[in-house]
C-alpha cells in the first residue's frame, strides 16, 4: 500500500517534500526563537563572566549529564521509528515511539527533581524571601561576628547562594571577591528561562509523540509512505536535542565541576546519598 496523495499534490514524492519543508521552515523560526535567548545570555556572560561561573558552579551537573544521554538515546529511538514505519512494522513503530516517550519523560522527571533541589537550596532569583535553614544558620554566625548586619538579610537568594557555593567541593570563589551574589541572579534568570523553554518544547514533543502512538494504534501508519510524518516529528525532536547540546556547556559547564562531583550530585538527587 502506498497511501493517499492529497489532491493538490502531483505525486507522493512532492507531498513528502512539502511535509519536510514545512517542518524545516518551522525549525528556522525555532532557531531564531532560541537564538534570541542565547544572544541575551552571551551579552550578560561577557559582562559578568565570574558571576556566571559562580552560578553554574551551583547547578546539579550530575542530572544534566544523565539527561544528555537520555535525550541522545531518544533521538536514536525516534530515528529507528522512522524505519519501522517505512517497513510497515507496526509493533516496532509503537515500541520505538514508546521508548522515545519514556526517555523524554525520564528527562522531564529528572528536570523536575533538579528544579526541586534548586528550590530546596533557595536558588530562586528575586525577592521571594525564602532563606534555607542552613543559610540562616550561616548568616546568624556571620552576624555574631559582624553585628552591623541587619537581623534579616536583604536578599535571601544571596545568602542561599553563598552557603551553597561555600559548601561546594569544587568551587573555591569568595563572595565579594570572585562573584557578587546579586549578579548571579542574572545567571539564574537565564538558567530557569532557557531550561524552562526547553522543557516546554519537550512537553509539546511528548504530546505529539503520544498522538503519533494513538495514530499508530489506529492503523494510520500502515500506509508505509506516511513514514514522512514520523520523520517530521523526528526533525522537531532532534532540534530539541540540539538545543540541549548548547544549553549543557553554556549553563552547566560554565563553572568548575568534576566527574566525581557529578556522580555524587546525581546519587544525591535520586536519593542514594552523596553531597554537593
Amino acid at each position, binding site marked *: 500500500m502506498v497511501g493517499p496523495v492529497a489532491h493538490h499534490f502531483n505525486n507522493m514524492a512532492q507531498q513528502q517534500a512539502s511535509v519536510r519543508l514545512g517542518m524545516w521552515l518551522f525549525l528556522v523560526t525555532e532557531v*531564531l526563537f532560541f537564538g534570541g535567548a542565547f544572544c541575551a545570555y*552571551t551579552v550578560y556572560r561577557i559582562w559578568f563572566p565570574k558571576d556566571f561561573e559562580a552560578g553554574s558552579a551551583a547547578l546539579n551537573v550530575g542530572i544534566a549529564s544523565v539527561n544528555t544521554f537520555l535525550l541522545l538515546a531518544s533521538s536514536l529511538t525516534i*530515528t529507528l521509528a522512522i524505519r519501522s514505519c517505512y517497513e510497515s512494522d507496526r509493533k516496532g513503530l509503537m515500541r520505538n515511539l514508546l521508548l522515545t516517550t519514556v526517555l523524554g519523560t525520564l528527562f522531564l522527571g529528572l528536570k523536575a527533581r533538579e528544579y526541586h533541589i534548586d528550590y530546596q537550596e533557595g536558588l530562586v532569583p528575586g525577592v521571594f524571601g525564602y532563606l534555607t535553614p542552613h543559610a540562616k544558620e550561616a548568616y546568624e554566625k556571620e552576624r555574631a561576628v559582624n553585628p552591623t548586619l541587619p537581623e534579616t538579610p536583604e536578599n535571601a537568594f544571596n545568602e542561599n547562594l553563598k552557603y551553597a557555593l561555600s559548601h561546594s567541593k569544587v568551587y573555591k570563589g569568595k563572595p565579594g571577591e570572585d562573584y557578587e551574589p546579586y549578579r548571579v541572579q542574572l545567571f539564574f534568570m537565564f538558567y530557569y528561562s532557557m531550561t524552562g523553554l526547553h522543557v516546554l518544547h519537550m512537553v509539546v514533543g511528548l504530546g505529539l509523540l503520544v498522538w503519533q502512538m494513538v495514530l499508530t494504534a489506529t492503523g494510520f501508519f500502515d500506509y508505509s509512505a506516511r513514514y514522512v510524518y514520523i520523520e517530521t516529528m523526528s526533525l522537531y525532536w532532534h532540534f530539541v536535542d540540539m538545543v540541549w547540546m548548547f544549553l549543557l*556547556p553554556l549553563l552547566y559547564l560554565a563553572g568548575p565541576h568534576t566527574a566525581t562531583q557529578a556522580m555524587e550530585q546525581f546519587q544525591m538527587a535520586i536519593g542514594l546519598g552523596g553531597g554537593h
Partner: protein
Amino acid sequence: MHAVEQHIHTLPTRGSTFTVFAVLAGLALLALFIGFSDLGPLKVVASLGCASVQAGVLAYFFMDLKQSDKLTWLCVASALFFTGLQFLFTLTDYLTRHLGVL
C-alpha cells in the same frame, strides 16, 4: 517531473543509525570531559566547538540533511545566517555601551 519530486529519500540502515548514535555519545562524553577540565578561556571555545560538531552530526545524519534537497539546505543556511546577524547586531550594540562604567 520537478527536481523536488525526483528527490527520493532512502532510509539509512540500522547499523549506520547506531554508528551515528555512538559518535554522538562519544562527542557528548568529550563535551563533559571538556566541561570538567580547567582550560581557562579556551574552555568555552572548546565546549561550543564540540557542541557545534554534535549539532552538525545530528543534523547531517539523523535529520537527514545528507539527502535533503537544496531548499532544505537553504532553510538551514538562512537560519544560521539570520542568527548570525542577530548576534552581530546585538553584540555590537551592547558591547559598545557603558564602556568603563561596569
